[in-house]
């Protein structure tokens, strides 16, 4: 969890914290390294997402263990939990859930503050870079572990001049909660 910045949601459990700048700078150098390794921005976006996914599938257990939450009853609940509990716990920022699609399977997580990108100015030649794509992967990985297959993509990015960071989360499939047995059909 990050230190500094406004206090997150009230119910975020206290974890060991690290200095927010160390975190921001570490992430920055990872992105730089990926850009010089792959030289292709699309590939970098993909790698960041994959890294996030790998983190998400592990991190979700920590969240479930420490936040002491119970099963969510709907995707709507889940989105709120991610925005109001998970993000504050790990990033010390909370998000708003907005722009629901009519069938309630797609929504946006809106962040106005993002510690990943604190000192970042995106240069012109990297304007296709999804700098925070790691977060999209984390959300996808974490939700996959609780049986929700989602697709995450950035539709708003303050680094590109938008008013906020907007992560669009689309529920593709909600597999049966009852693990993992399907009755033979």
């Amino acid at each position: 969890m990050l230190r500094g910045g406004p206090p997150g949601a009230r119910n975020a459990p206290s974890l060991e914290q690290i200095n927010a700048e160390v975190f921001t700078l570490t992430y920055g150098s990872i992105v730089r390294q990926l850009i010089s390794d792959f030289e292709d921005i699309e590939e970098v976006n993909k790698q960041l997402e994959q890294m996030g996914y790998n983190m998400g599938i592990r991190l979700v257990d920590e969240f479930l263990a420490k936040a002491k939450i119970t099963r969510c009853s709907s995707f709507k609940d889940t989105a709120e939990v991610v925005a109001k509990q998970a993000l504050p716990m790990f990033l010390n920022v909370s998000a708003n859930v907005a722009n629901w699609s009519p069938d309630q399977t797609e929504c946006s997580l809106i962040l106005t503050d993002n510690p990943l990108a604190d000192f970042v100015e995106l240069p012109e030649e990297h304007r296709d870079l999804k700098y925070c794509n790691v977060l999209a992967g984390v959300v996808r990985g974490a939700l996959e572990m609780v049986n929700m297959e989602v697709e995450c993509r950035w539709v708003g990015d303050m680094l590109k001049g938008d008013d906020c960071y907007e992560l669009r989360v689309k529920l593709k499939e909600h597999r049966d909660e009852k693990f993992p047995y399907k009755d033979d059909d």
Partner: protein
Amino acid sequence: MAVYSLYVINKSGGLIYNRDFAEAARVDTNDSLRLASIWHSLHAIASQLSPVPGCTGIELLEADTFNLHCFQTLTGTKFLLVVDPHASFIPALLLRIYELYSDFVMKNPFYETEQVIKCELFDEAVEALVRRYLQQAQA
């Protein structure tokens, strides 16, 4: 008052961790593997058979000489504790073990998810937790 053994079962029913805290609790490796997979199946069957909707499986098995407590996380991993029938606060102890698992196992970059847990830090932390629990229980 005693804690006999801890088992961790992955979401496909494989035993990924087994630790005995008392000499009396030692079970043959094959038997523990069998216990894990049988428990996994019974757990799933029980939640389907249950007349009550929203059943999440067996949480406690009571026998004359031991109690078996089971805690299944929302990600499908199961933590089993075999304890003395008089032991109390076991669900809380299981939650603490889950926290240790999320710290020392899931955050270990060299741990392959769903595979057997070989993490010394986790061993030590669990050992210390159980020791503390027993001390408190005696006090």
